[in-house]
């Protein structure tokens, strides 16, 4: 338990009203508490106070002693005995604010009618509420060349900028990417980049959102809509397990933009650029009707009854398995879970459309992942195991970085080399040397009950590592956080969309647990055998597979071929590699079209409603119809029915089993011209949800292979020169980066342009590749 410190409360008077707030609260925020809005531009509650724009000037006196001049309310904490007079009660403050506003506007263009910000612009709004009726300025306004592309996705119109420095402070203080700065000075001061280094921050979109004027705009959205034509909906991000609250803005049935929503317990007010700018997949190559493969091997449009009948026929009386996509909502995952057990009578279900192991199933059953963002806030240290937060869960990164910046939080990371993210976190790198991972984890010490251990899904790729990690957590009483990469994974585990678990973490192997669930489902009995893993389902274990939103190349190079020999029913939003081989294709709703919830890595549920009207239905509704067709109903006709039933089942209170698997990592002999490959996915890569987002892709990190200095010397290559990485499957050629990686290892991005490892090399880690100069 975190110890709650008693906060001293301060009482002051603002515009005649008494208000009591925690010590340290700024005047501007104490006023907000009373509903008094003091105009502001540079102020942002999550950035360090700047006091730069001077728009929030108010009159202040303390215990009868008045400040001689108005003070910036965004920089002054309240004090007992303080009397504040805002523009509402002080003519001096009112004139000061009007004066500042007039000055801000003298060089601001009157281009509101063509500005993206028009209609939702703090400058426009506050000029109306706190400005003069007319300007007295008769001079020439400052102009700049416009717009400047400071990256492929962010444009800068400098003449609109009021130099509040929110964007530059965000970049430095929140993202740790000081690639935009204030340059020049005085009236020529302007935001800018170094000419050869664009603003390629994973978080750059937040600057567009917090810009109080139209100076920073998103390339993809520029000139596309007026704010007042948009319908806004609260939503949740489907791109990863960070759990961002989002806002989706829709015009005439089409998503035009997505913004970070606010949630102090998750993303605060930020999100990453993938979450913000990768949504066109919703409309590309959509499947609009059911299809059945005909005798000639072609997919043919079919009616729903025909398609359901065909699917039901193919799935019954078969060795069947269910693969659940990583982006399923909790309700959909629950639908798959129940469908597998009730309609198909099998535990052959797995949500892991990625590298997967049986050891990991044990981990799901045994692990008690309870850590939260708040635990990171209070942690004495954070240990990252096979988890690269900036790429794999960007908000987790921001929340750790916040503590690193604020209080030098100690971070250690088990990783192959010091990545940019590790550098920013000033992390102690525990070198992940192939074959040595388990020993390295076991050697970690000094953890306490206030430590947080964050485990990434890649840890399962090293035999024995998850067991060692769990042992580490158990012996130190540190808090464990399992942070899978995809948005649906935590929910899928909770819903039992996995071979050894039923909803609420109940063990398939536990008879009482089965009885519990069977009772809730009105089933006489549930299958008792632990089911097959993804690999086994794709392999020889089945001859029919129900697949929801899976990319076979996320799993293995052979998955597609192997699945093509089976009876495949595909629930999909758009044409994919699975569509190519499916016998029956059933269209389902994309995230924006459906309601549901995602469970973030903390286990926190975020519900959302459909943002876009659509005829498409959520997976769970299709599954319910299919179950009816099979004759073994699951009775989940709506998303809300599924949610209600899932919540009613609740979490299991039985004992967690311990892990039995052990291992010592890979043991490979590496020749001089060989290396053991390791990888993770960069945040921005060839992921299918990023398809068609060219502006976003323009800011992706360069695709390079990381090698050691001694390997570089041996190959006589310099930093940036091309190397070739090959095995019996194929080869990739890409520039190298020299870093502190082990001599026996090489790191490549897992799924980036020119480095799609599963497709090309058939491996993502722990196997030997040849490395040569290209």
């Amino acid at each position, binding site marked *: 338990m975190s110890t709650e410190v008693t906060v001293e409360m301060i009482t002051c008077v603002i515009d005649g009203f008494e208000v009591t707030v925690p010590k340290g609260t700024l005047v501007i925020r104490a006023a907000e508490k009373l509903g008094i809005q003091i105009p502001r531009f540079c102020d942002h509650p999550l950035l360090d106070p700047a006091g730069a724009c001077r728009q929030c000037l108010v009159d202040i006196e303390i215990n009868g002693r008045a400040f001689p001049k108005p003070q910036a309310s965004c920089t002054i904490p309240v004090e007992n005995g303080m009397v504040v007079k805002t523009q509402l009660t002080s003519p001096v403050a009112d004139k000061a604010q009007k004066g500042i506003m007039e000055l801000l506007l003298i060089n601001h263009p009157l281009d509101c009618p063509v500005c993206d910000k028009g209609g939702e612009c703090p400058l426009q709004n506050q000029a109306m509420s706190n400005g003069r009726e007319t300007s007295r300025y008769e001079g020439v306004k400052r102009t700049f060349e416009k717009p400047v592309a400071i990256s492929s996705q962010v444009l800068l119109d400098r003449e609109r900028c009021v130099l509040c420095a929110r964007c530059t402070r965000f970049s430095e203080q929140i993202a740790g990417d000081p*690639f935009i700065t204030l*340059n*020049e000075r005085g009236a020529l001061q302007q935001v*800018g*980049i*170094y000419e050869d280094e664009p603003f390629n921050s994973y978080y750059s979109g937040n600057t567009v959102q917090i810009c109080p004027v139209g100076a920073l705009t998103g390339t993809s959205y520029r000139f596309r809509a007026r704010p007042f034509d948009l319908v806004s909906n609260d939503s949740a991000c489907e791109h990863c397990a960070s759990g961002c609250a989002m806002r989706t803005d829709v015009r005439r049935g089409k998503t035009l933009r997505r913004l970070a929503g606010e949630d102090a317990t998750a993303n605060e007010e930020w999100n990453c650029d993938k979450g913000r700018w990768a949504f066109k997949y919703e409309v590309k190559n959509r499947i609009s009707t059911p299809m059945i493969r005909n005798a000639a091997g072609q997919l043919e449009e079919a009616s729903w009854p025909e398609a359901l009948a065909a699917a039901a026929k193919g799935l019954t009386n078969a060795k069947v398995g269910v693969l659940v996509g990583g982006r399923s909502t909790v309700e959909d995952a629950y639908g798959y879970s129940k469908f597998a057990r009730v309609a198909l009578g099998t535990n052959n279900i797995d949500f892991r459309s990625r590298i997967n192991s049986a050891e990991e199933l044990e981990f799901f059953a045994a692990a008690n992942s309870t850590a939260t963002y708040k635990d990171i806030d209070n942690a004495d240290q954070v240990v990252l195991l096979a988890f690269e937060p900036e790429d794999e869960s960007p908000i987790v990164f921001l929340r750790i970085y916040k503590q690193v910046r604020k209080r030098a939080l100690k971070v250690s990371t088990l990783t192959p080399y010091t990545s940019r993210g590790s550098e920013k976190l000033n992390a102690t790198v525990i070198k992940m040397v192939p074959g040595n991972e388990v020993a390295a984890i076991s050697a970690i010490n000094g953890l306490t009950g206030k430590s947080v251990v964050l485990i990434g899904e890649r840890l399962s790729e090293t035999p024995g590592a998850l067991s060692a990690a769990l042992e580490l957590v158990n012996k130190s009483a540190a808090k464990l956080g399992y942070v899978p990469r995809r948005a649906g994974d935590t929910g899928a585990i909770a819903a039992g969309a996995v071979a050894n678990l039923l909803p609420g973490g109940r063990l398939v192997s536990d008879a009482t647990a089965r009885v519990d669930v069977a009772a809730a489902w009105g089933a006489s009995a549930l299958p008792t055998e632990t089911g097959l893993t993804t690999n086994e389902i794709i392999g020889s274990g089945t001859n029919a597979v129900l697949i929801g939103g899976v990319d076979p190349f996320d799993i293995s190079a052979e998955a597609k071929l192997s699945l093509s020999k089976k009876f495949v029913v595909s629930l999909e939003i758009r044409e994919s590699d699975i569509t190519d081989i499916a016998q029956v294709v059933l269209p389902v709703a994309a995230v924006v079209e459906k309601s549901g919830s995602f469970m973030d890595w903390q286990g926190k549920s975020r519900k959302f409603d459909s943002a876009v009207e659509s005829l498409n239905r959520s997976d769970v509704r299709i599954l319910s119809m299919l179950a009816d067709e099979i004759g073994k109903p699951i009775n989940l006709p709506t998303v809300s029915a599924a949610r209600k039933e899932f919540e009613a089942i609740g979490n299991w209170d039985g004992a967690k089993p311990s892990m039995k698997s052990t291992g010592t990592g890979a043991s490979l002999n590496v020749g001089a011209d060989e290396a053991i490959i390791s990888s993770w996915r960069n945040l921005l890569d060839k992921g299918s949800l990023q398809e068609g987002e060219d502006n976003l892709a323009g800011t992706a990190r360069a695709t390079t292979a990381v090698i050691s200095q001694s390997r570089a010397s041996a190959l006589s290559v310099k930093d940036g020169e091309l190397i070739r990485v090959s095995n019996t499957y194929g080869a990739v050629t890409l520039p190298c980066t020299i870093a502190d990686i082990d001599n026996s290892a090489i790191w490549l991005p897992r799924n980036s342009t020119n480095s799609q490892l599963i497709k090309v090399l058939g491996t993502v880690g722990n196997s030997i590749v040849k490395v040569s100069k290209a």
Partner: protein
Amino acid sequence: MAFTTEQTSVMDSIIARYPRKRSAIMPLLHFVQSIDGYVTNEGIEVIAEKLELATAEVTAVSTFYTQYKSKPVGEYHVGICTNTLCAVMGGDAIFASIKEHLDIENDGVTKDGKVSVEHIECNAACDYAPVVMVNWEFYDNQTVQSVKDLVDGARAGNPPAPTRGPKTLRTWKQNSAVLAGISDGLANEGVQAGAPTLLGLKKAKGGN
């Protein structure tokens, strides 16, 4: 042109002066100017690398200070004070006539690359007004003619000596090294003070 090993080791010695290395950014920028004549991209990149900063952060600093130049200046950079006092006492006239004399605008460089001209703000020598600085050396009590002679001499390779400075005027790059904290051994050259500096003392001693 790449910096030599010797030059990068000077950079390291500059960094070593400070308890925290970021503090070295300004002398390093002066040092880059002593090699390249202005703040080149390569200079920015080397500084960023040495100080572990983003290149944007170095740019932010280099563009803030007016002595850091984003493009080449002359071998002799002439700064004419046109702040109120010097302007009124003749700085405006000097500035106007020198621009015309050299046929360049403010911040311009003569075609031979020898002389550039910039109007500058108060240079802490008001008792010597009108003041002109060349490569940041004092030229006191100037007139239109004296500055014409000065720039003509500079273009011909024999500029007159500063009023309060070394015996010989050094080039922009040479003086930039001094500003980077690298001694040129000329501190003992030149007067200790000019007459206005000594006026009060003289009066106190009963002089006229």
